[in-house]
């Protein structure tokens, strides 16, 4: 896929997102009011933040399955520590999650083990840790302190609350990092061609640790912020987060084999999915319609992508040997 094709691909996905938006906006006035959009943005914060982390590992040709469990552990940790203050506990929580992510990246990088395989272990194990830390119960902050985190969602700038503005900042920073820094491009490099990148002198461990630290930290950030805002954390929480985040990335055109995709794509995938899920729920349709619609949509994306790829391959096959000679 060359640059123009990539741009067209992104354009088609964006058009698709707009279509989903319009389909629901016709029915739901809150899709175009300031409050409604603000709520849509706030509702996208958790999945958006975590999706970037998952997306970064996918760009590196890896897959972090542990994000949901890690978000739950971090939520429990942060709520238990909230006595030291909201922001300090948030920072500690994110550092904790980043450390776990870095450790995973280190093990995966040093052993060269497939992360899909390794993180199934941490997916199960970290959930167990969350249960142990919380004594198998929800942990809460005192009710009179609930309003302490109100500032998270108080409108700040038009449709942006500090929370959604934070998400936008995360998106922008991640985008700039991936696009314009050596470390960011190394993540693409090890995803686009592991042995090639190694042969070119990229130290594989560094991008690997960075990618998993990002996904750990962002999963932790999502889990911590949401838990603080809700005033409690449950060890069983964030169960569906992994699938949502993965679906977001896939809808946004992040290739599972690594190296291809962009933060803009993740944003498009995120809102395509959020428009759909929020819309279905707001209409009062049963939950299974969400399943059907999201599953069906993803099937459509898979099939269309497949047909487009095959078409391109057929063309490439015809012109394969027609190189200037």
């Amino acid at each position, binding site marked *: 896929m060359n640059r123009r094709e990539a741009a067209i691909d992104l354009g088609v996905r964006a058009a698709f997102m707009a279509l989903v938006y319009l389909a629901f906006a016709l029915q739901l006035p809150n899709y175009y009011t300031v409050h409604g959009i603000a709520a849509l943005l706030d509702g996208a914060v958790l999945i958006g933040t975590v999706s970037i982390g998952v997306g970064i590992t996918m760009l590196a040709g890896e897959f972090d399955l542990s994000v949901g469990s890690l978000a739950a552990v971090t939520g429990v940790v942060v709520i238990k520590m909230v006595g030291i203050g909201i922001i300090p506990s948030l920072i500690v929580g994110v550092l904790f999650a980043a450390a776990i992510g870095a450790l995973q990246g280190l093990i995966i990088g040093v052993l060269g083990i497939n992360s899909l395989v390794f993180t199934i272990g941490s997916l199960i194990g970290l959930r167990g840790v969350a249960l142990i830390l919380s004594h198998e119960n929800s942990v809460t902050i005192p009710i009179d302190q609930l309003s302490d985190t109100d500032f998270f969602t108080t409108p700040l700038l038009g449709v942006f609350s500090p929370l959604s503005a934070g998400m936008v900042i995360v998106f922008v920073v991640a985008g700039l990092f991936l696009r314009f*820094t050596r470390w960011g491009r190394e993540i693409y*490099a090890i995803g686009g*061609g592991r042995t090639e990148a190694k042969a070119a002198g*990229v130290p594989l461990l560094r991008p690997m640790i960075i990618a998993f630290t990002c996904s750990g930290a962002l999963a932790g950030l999502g889990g911590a912020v949401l838990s603080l805002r809700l005033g409690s954390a449950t060890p069983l929480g964030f169960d569906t987060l992994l699938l949502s985040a993965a679906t977001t990335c896939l809808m946004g055109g992040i290739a599972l084999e690594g*190296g291809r995709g962009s933060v803009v794509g993740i944003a498009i995938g995120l809102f395509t999915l959020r428009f759909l899920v929020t819309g279905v729920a707001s209409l009062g349709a049963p939950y299974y319609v969400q399943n059907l619609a999201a599953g069906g949509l993803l099937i459509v994306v898979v099939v269309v992508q497949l047909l487009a790829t095959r078409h391109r391959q057929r063309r490439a096959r015809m012109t394969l040997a027609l*190189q200037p000679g």
Partner: protein
Amino acid sequence: MQSDGAVLRMRGISKRYGSVTALQGVDFSLAAGEVMALLGENGAGKSTLVKILAGLERADAGTIEIGGVLRRLRSPSQSLHAGVAYVTQELSIVAPLSVAENICLGSDRHALWSRRRLDRVVRRHLDLVGLGDIDSATPAGDLSVAQQQLVEIARLLSRNARILILDEPTAALSDAEIEKVKAVVRTLAAEGRSIIYVTHRLGEVFEIADRVTIFRNGHSFAPMEVKSLDVDRLIEHLLGRRLEQMFPERGSISGPVVLALRDVTAPGLREPVSFDLHKGEILGLAGQLGSGAAAVVRAIAGVTPRLGGTIALHGRPLDARSVRNAIAAGIAYCSDDRKRDGIFAVRNLFENFTSPALPRITVGGVLSRGREVKLASDLAAFFEVARDRLGSHAGKLSGGNQQKVALGKWLGIEPSLLLVEEPTRGVDVGARAEIYRHMRGLANQGLAVVFVSSDNQEVLGLADTVATFFRGRLVRITAAEHLKPEELLRDVTHPEAVAAGGPA
């Protein structure tokens, strides 16, 4: 530091892979500003040595001194820091990244990579390798293989390394590009950098190398001045035998026509191609990369679609729209990349040998172990693969043995036509002779064989008939006996000079 000006001194380097000794106490040194060629059969240890130097492999024993300082080279980046840059045999281009990013990849000089800044950094190097007119922001995957190889060289230039390793850099390049690479090598040496040049092409040794180090069976021999050598002496050192022994005797061809192409066009061909191939005949298609030689066999094998003309097999029209069709018609095809699609590296030889002939070892959908063992051992015996290797993974064999498997498995389908691209790519000299002998043996037993090769010696030595290709056109078809090496070389490099001589 020694007074002889050695920038690199490796002492007592040993390396084992499992039970195989790749290097045994090898000493190696390199002087500043020299081009040192490394020669040796595959598996002789030269690639292992440069990989250790490049930080891709770790030596089991031995020391490495660079610029008089002892170094531990545990990773490519450590090697880079020590001033060693490496262009691999396999490409190290990351397809989704841009050309500029690929050049800067692995260097830690700039933390921020904006497009404009990178372009400024790499422009000079791109100009030097003749890629001055491409946009450095193009994804490298969009370039041709040769261009990618040049990008790698440009990367190497950007490294400012004192020691440059080029591991068979010209294997996939066309002549014009090879010239470019050689020119770059000479420029670099003139600048005072030392170059280790790993190659299989003896000609290149004489053209650019100052000294040559020969490897045999994991040992290295003392470097020799190239000026003091000629080709025969070099080959003698390399093999311990003479070139003539390499190619088997030709037989006489009198069989019926097996394959007939009439005005065939296919992707990669600019003009229609026609020829006949007889039973027991070996046809060599000679040509450099992009010449169209490979395009012909790919069209016959159903890998790429045939765009026009007719192909007849045993007088009946063949319409192979896929590889499966072609196989069903009795056509066996070996690509030029056996690791990619020739062998199953993680399966044993039984399974490899019988893979195209499953129907033959199956009774009612169930595999018969007896038949499988019989077929595989017969094939192994035919190709002289040691029987006790049959249980090991194909990936563990030497390049030569792998090639025997990739070729030999086809006999199970009882083919009437064998198509082979680059039959001895990545195969050491000793095993080459064996493969030539087997191919001739097959032809003698009545198989029609077409092979594609960019190795002119191979074409001249092995083929009965030679078809030369240049830039998508068939230049001419000649009996190999009547073809002089100089003519062949001209045909595949600049046939305009002999345009009057050929029918095409």
